[in-house]
């Protein structure tokens, strides 16, 4: 199954801490996570994205195209990146997500791909 994994920043956490846990509680650097998941064929695609300030939202309401500055949500949480994972099942995806460093410094949202 394919999952879109959204990598989100938690503004309540100090991002300066990111990476400082490395090695102490099993945290691995992002480079390791990418290398591992790429080697296993689990990560289909992934990248970082520019912050919410650079986001543009598109919608059509009442037949009119509305293009607005900013992200679709009012939330302070921001999507920092994404990965497309190809996993056996949700438990497999959960393990991959839990190993991502942002599981500690933000959070990860897993969205299964739509299949008919």
């Amino acid at each position, binding site marked *: *199954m394919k*999952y879109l994994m959204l990598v989100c920043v938690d503004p309540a956490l100090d991002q300066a801490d990111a990476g400082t846990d490395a090695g102490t509680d099993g945290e691995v650097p992002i480079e390791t996570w990418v290398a591992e998941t790429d080697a296993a064929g689990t990560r289909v695609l992934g990248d970082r994205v520019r912050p919410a300030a650079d986001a543009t939202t598109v919608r059509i309401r009442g037949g009119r195209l509305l293009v607005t500055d900013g992200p679709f949500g009012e939330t302070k949480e921001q999507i920092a990146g994404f990965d497309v994972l190809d*996993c*056996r*099942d*949700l*438990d497999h*995806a*959960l393990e991959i997500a839990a190993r991502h460093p942002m599981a500690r410094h933000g959070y990860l949202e*897993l969205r*299964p791909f739509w299949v008919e």
Partner: protein
Amino acid sequence: MSDPAARDAVTAAFRDGWATVVATLIRVTGDWALAEECAQDAFEAALRHWPVDGVPHRPGAWLTVAARNRALDRLRRSTTEAAKLQELALLSEPADGLADGAAGGVDDDRLRLIFTCCHPALAPEGRVALTLRTVGGLAVPEIARAFLVGEATMAQRLVRARRKIRNAGIPFRVPPEHQLPERTAAVLAVVYLLFNAGYTVADGVAPIRGELTAEAVRLARLLARLLPDDPEVQGLLALLLLTEARRPARLGAEGEPVVLEEQDRARWDAAAIAEGVAVLDRPDG
């Protein structure tokens, strides 16, 4: 065979076999709704046939095969590709894998069912509802009444939980060793919550609530048998048994709570106390 005896046999088979029949069909077809409907049909067929033909030698196997045949009927009438694949899976499943008595198979299927119903990716109220429906075999109206919500709300909750299992790819399995302690804790939380829901309300809906505590004890017993080496599981079973034992004496004639010192101990359930103490006394427990 007389009618009441056959009925008792069906009731007993339901208690012992419902979860097994459902779990086996889910494992083979991957379709939760189909599994539940066909299990339901199989028990209804038993109510019709057993009084006439007698209770089969192996009731569990009879029920599983009846449910499988029902599922095959339904799948054959469907034309989707998914249905064809499910049909093939059912046909290629060896009879031993479907019937009871296959080495470890029955227990494995039931454990898979419990762990999947209590998967942390499901909403907590969905876990509880699904466990009662799928493992416990309670009907939707019963579950709705026990949790004081409308039937439509409860039915919707179940639909949502089953849909999430399918769409999010929640696997039907016992978690691997390294995830087991965490996931077992999630299962125990559901059992404990069930028990509490039954224990805390005193009046009005008491009979149904009593069923909830009994169901929680039954689940804890099943888990204790399936996971004999887990001290947390044994501990929860003992706790529930010893608490449940005092239930008959908890309330006075007016439904008022009676403090422990003043309870009529003759009304405590001696058998439940003995069972609970025995669980605690187990050398490895």
